[in-house]
């Protein structure tokens, strides 16, 4: 039994393959969340300020992206655009690099688009929960709207949004498995291939799960630190 595992993991090189997959997962997950969050903040503001039309558009975007399976998002993004991207790239003589880089780019865009839709709701909810009086105080001191936002609203909202952002991150790191449909070998896909051909599904899936767990355990430490930081000044309960 142990001998079999040794052969699989070391001699057949699956450990390395899983680690490579984990690398892809982390890269796409982190980029996806960071880009998603960065773009979610302005969108959430539009929604929070209830700007006509724009706020409805944000709403529609967030409902549709949250509503359809992630797989479709990436399918449509990729298969809907790969034709003309390929054509344009060929016209400029970059056919090969487009062929290789495009799935990666689309993967990140799709993951970012999904995590953005989730983050919009989280941040909007947090913005709405910031007590009005605190913003009025800033306004009456004639802090500019931009400063009011960055010095008062955002720090207070981030404290409320932290748990939600953590949830989005944990979902996104696992949503990265979607990029396998455009041919990228991330962690889950590597585990699935290994499970299929070595006939040890539980072993490989649990290994993948353990790796995910390790990633989120590390991120949890960071989130705990952030929570402590944002909660300074607030009485505990």
């Amino acid at each position, binding site marked *: 039994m142990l001998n079999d595992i040794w052969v699989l993991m070391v001699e057949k090189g699956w450990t390395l393959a899983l680690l490579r997959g984990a690398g892809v997962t982390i890269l796409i997950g982190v980029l996806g969340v960071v880009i998603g969050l960065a773009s979610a903040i302005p969108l959430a503001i539009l929604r929070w300020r209830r700007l006509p039309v724009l706020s409805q558009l944000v709403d529609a975007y967030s409902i549709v992206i949250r509503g359809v399976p992630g797989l479709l998002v990436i399918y449509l993004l990729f298969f809907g655009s790969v*034709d003309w991207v390929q054509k344009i790239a060929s016209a400029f003589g970059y056919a090969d690099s487009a062929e290789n880089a495009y799935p990666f780019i689309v993967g990140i865009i799709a993951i970012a688009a999904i995590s953005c839709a989730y983050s919009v709701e989280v941040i909007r909810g947090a913005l709405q929960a910031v007590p009005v009086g605190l913003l009025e105080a800033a306004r009456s001191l004639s802090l500019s709207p931009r400063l009011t936002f960055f010095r008062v609203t955002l720090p207070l909202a981030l404290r409320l949004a932290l748990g939600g952002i953590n949830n989005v991150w944990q979902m996104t790191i696992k949503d990265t498995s979607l990029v396998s449909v455009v041919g990228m070998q991330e962690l889950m896909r590597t585990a699935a291939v290994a499970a299929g051909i070595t006939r040890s599904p539980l072993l490989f899936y649990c290994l993948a799960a353990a790796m995910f767990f390790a990633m989120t355990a590390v991120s949890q430490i960071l989130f705990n630190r952030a929570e402590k930081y944002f909660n300074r000044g607030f009485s505990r309960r």
Partner: protein
Amino acid sequence: DDGVLRVGTEGDAPQFSMADANGNVTGFDADIANGICAELKVKCKFVVQTFSSLVPSMDKDRFDIIISGLGITDERMKKIDYSIPYATTPQYFVVPKDSPLVGLKSLAEIEKALAGKTIGVVNGTTYAKFIKKHIPTADLKTYDATTQQNSDLGTGRLDAAFGDSPTWVDFLGSPDGANFARIDVKVTGADDHEALGYGMGVGLRKSNTELKAKLDAALCEMINNGKVKAASENWFKDDYTIPCKK
């Protein structure tokens, strides 16, 4: 073109298409692909992707052909073209060793005996359609992988499973399969072409007649010179070649 034939394959189907830790593909499908490339004097480049993205990817020219044990059916031919069939595996039912069903002698008897029972098949095949049609009262379970199906056989969630013979040779030979036996009634495409199709073929984009002609010729050559048989016997311990009609 430019000397490379891009081949889409699943990579996680035991014996058929197995991508190892370094991404190299081996198995029956790989042998067929390499054989074709050799005939056409081009280099094979494997693209390993999940089953559900193979067809759309080929549509978008991510690769030229799919070799992933695809069964040819009329239904599927509406979406993609096929080469000539090059192999077909017979299908069997597997039940617990102590089941009275083990001794059944014909498909008709099996159909009657399994009415209302729980039967497992694997997704990506056409077996679900076959069971639905022939044993409509059965409680049909579809699995993403044979290992999962076999696990449910082992825990007693399934009364029977339906699959192709390479799978069963593999399973019944393993310790997990010790308590199971296959019903010795060979089910083939000939029993029901509509549901079970016409054997395995290479998939390619619609109306690519030029490539289809080349593939057909290459496959025919490989069938006739025994390369397919050799591959089949290497991976399945049996010869499942379909003779070339031409």
